[in-house]
């Protein structure tokens, strides 16, 4: 009896901790989707950037030695947030703002960005970083200078047509030359996965019955709760939060009232991206960090958004926890074991059925089927927006 209780508690704890990871990954996605109707396929890559930031911060702290080293994780969370938010901001200003009202195209464009980011991490080196800097300096610097001229509008197209290939060529050439210098040619990150070592105080766990609750998992749950509180506070208590909520509800009206919707979009996108960075920092504690880290989480995060609906944050929370718990209960075979142990005759065929799905990947199959079934009942998710304005 005690054994079963422990088993159940263990299942719930693991479910919650998987749910927490999903939630922290989906949170940014849900906020961005709620505000702009945009799904960011590069969200997973922003997580990946967050994870790599954690790795870099950890490397930077290593020479400091204990006890300072153990505290690197707090710096890493903040750094990951900032790095991902900045990249997200650049993404919004550079790409997404041209695509509002075309959500499907946004999907494709952000996929393009995610490909570039993935390859960037693989092949970034000193030479490459310098040539990118050279390119930015030349191209955007020239644009900045030219934009001050009064006849800018008439020469805009021509100027870009000349500047772009020119600065690309210079940057490419200098990159090629710099690549001959061994120090600069060395890749920053190896193409193989890297590992983030958790600080000492996060190793081990609280012994509990037959298993133990790992500290890293507890840390992630705490981090998620902290993020949730932070987001809640930001959206409901700050000026910009109020603006974000008003634009979410009625963009045109907000614009008429003098709310700078473009800035709100940019800010929200940066915020959502920053959360992806934090999520990346969190998952770097769970496994090795590689360029494809994001893809493992991204589809599940999408499902959280789909099931949760865009109306409220609560939807995402419930959806993440339910999906996480279901994934664990089915994937670990807990259901099959409980059914098998129950000894009820007519349940026995079900045991075979659930055993068939009792692997991590097969659990996803089952959960997807359940999600599709759920959508037959609630097509707009748990907390849909209601009323006439929904389907204009």
């Amino acid at each position, binding site marked *: 009896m005690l054994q079963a209780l422990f088993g159940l508690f263990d299942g719930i704890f693991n479910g919650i901790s998987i749910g927490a990871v999903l939630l922290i990954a989906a949170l940014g996605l849900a906020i961005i989707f709620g505000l702009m109707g945009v799904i960011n396929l590069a969200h997973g890559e922003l997580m990946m950037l967050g994870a790599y930031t954690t790795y870099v911060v950890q490397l930077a702290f290593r020479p400091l030695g204990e006890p300072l080293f153990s505290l690197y994780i707090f710096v890493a969370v903040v750094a990951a947030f900032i790095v991902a938010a900045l990249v997200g901001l650049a993404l919004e200003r550079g790409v997404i703002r041209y695509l509002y009202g075309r959500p499907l195209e946004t999907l494709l464009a952000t996929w393009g960005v995610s490909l570039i980011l993935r390859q960037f991490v693989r092949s970034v080196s000193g030479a490459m970083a310098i040539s990118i800097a050279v390119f930015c300096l030349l191209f955007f610097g020239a644009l900045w200078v030219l934009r001050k001229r009064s006849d800018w509008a008439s020469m805009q197209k021509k100027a870009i047509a000349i500047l772009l290939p020119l600065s690309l060529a210079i940057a490419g050439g200098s990159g090629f030359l710099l690549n001959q210098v061994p120090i600069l040619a060395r890749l920053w990150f190896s193409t193989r996965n890297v590992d983030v070592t958790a600080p000492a105080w996060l190793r081990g766990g609280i012994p509990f019955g037959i298993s133990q609750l790992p500290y890293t998992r507890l840390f992630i749950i705490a981090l998620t709760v902290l993020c949730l509180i932070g987001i809640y506070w930001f959206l409901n208590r700050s000026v910009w939060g109020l603006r974000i909520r008003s634009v979410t509800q009625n963009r045109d009206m907000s614009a008429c009232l003098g709310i700078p919707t473009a800035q709100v979009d940019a800010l929200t996108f940066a915020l959502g991206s920053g959360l992806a960075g934090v999520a990346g920092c969190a998952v770097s504690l769970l496994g090795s960090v590689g360029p494809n880290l994001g893809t493992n989480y991204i589809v599940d995060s999408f499902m959280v958004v789909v099931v949760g609906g865009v109306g409220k944050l609560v939807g995402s929370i419930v959806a993440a926890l339910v999906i996480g718990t279901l994934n664990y209960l089915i994937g670990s075979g807990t259901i099959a074991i409980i059914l098998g142990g129950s000894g009820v005759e007519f349940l026995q065929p079900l045991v075979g059925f659930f055993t068939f799905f009792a692997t991590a990947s097969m659990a996803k199959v089952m959960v997807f089927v359940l999600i599709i079934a759920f959508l037959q009942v609630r097509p707009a998710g748990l907390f849909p927006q*209601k*009323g*006439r304005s929904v*389907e204009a």
Partner: protein
Amino acid sequence: MSEKILDIENVTVSFDGFKALNNLTFNMEPGELRVIIGPNGAGKTTFLDVITGKVRPTEGSARFKGKDLTHLKEHEIARLGIGRKFQTPRVYLNLTPRENLEISCNRTKTVFDTLFKKTPQPERQTVSGLLETIGLSAQADVPAELLSHGQKQWLEIGMLVAQSPDLLLVDEPVAGLTDEETEHTGELLMALAESHSIIVIEHDMEFVRQIARQVTVLHEGSVLFEGSMNEVQTNPRVIEVYLGSEPSISTEEMTMLRIAASMAWSDGHFTNEQQDIILGRLSQQFAKDGQEQSTLQEELKDYLAKDIPVEDLVPLLKTPEEREMALKLSYEVLSSNQINQQKGVAYQRLLQALKLPPEVVQRVEQSVTGMVS
């Protein structure tokens, strides 16, 4: 055909506790042209949503020619013969007007027939005819996204007709149109009304007056009033809803006010002087002291309505005394300025409509003349 074409009983629609429609009952005879008006948020569009199946009523029933609509899907309702035009024109922008109409005109709307059957000759002719009617023959083969707003409105009305429904639901057909286009649209709807039942939702009162025979006023999700346009314009509750305050005068008094005003308007000029006389006299009649009079005078300005035929107003007055009063007021107004020919004709029409005995008329006229001189 005693059966109602549309019969809606006790329909309630609530979104998260907010009742967009509240216990609404409405019905319509076949061949009727009904205009629905109401302030913003009265539930006009939700009302159409319920009929077309876009919104399911929380309670109540909706029947079309005796068939229950509440469990049918939108396309099934459309196939029964209910066509809807949306508030903003919604046409297929990447198709030409001809293709737009052909899609609506198609009689067999199953997947199989759409795949394997060609557009039959009669349908082609119907479409050509319709293009002529809505004035888009010349633009028949360019993408609809190139059409102007008015042309799109017309194209959508054309699509509605092409569907050959028994009941047309038209949501704000003249929003954003020029006066000329508005008038054309009115004519088009009147022509359609000869062979269809039509519900029109509109804000533009001029337009409503042009087409309306029977008007339903919605307010806070239920029917506030139903009647002719004149009855609507003189109904105190409707006025309250639209103007936000309850009039302190009765319907009869308001009618008198309007009759007198229509005299002043009959030659197309309405001077401030005339207005002051009408309002001053009326307010004197019903106010107790000077201050009350002046407030009443201010208030009455709101209720002066233009262009209501005298023949429609007079029947609203019940007693001979009220009619006498109306005559007195009108004569005062007329004699305050020079009486020209138009005013003379209008006065004669009024006399005919009032049907007062000649001696009464004479007495009133004399008393007014005496007072003025």
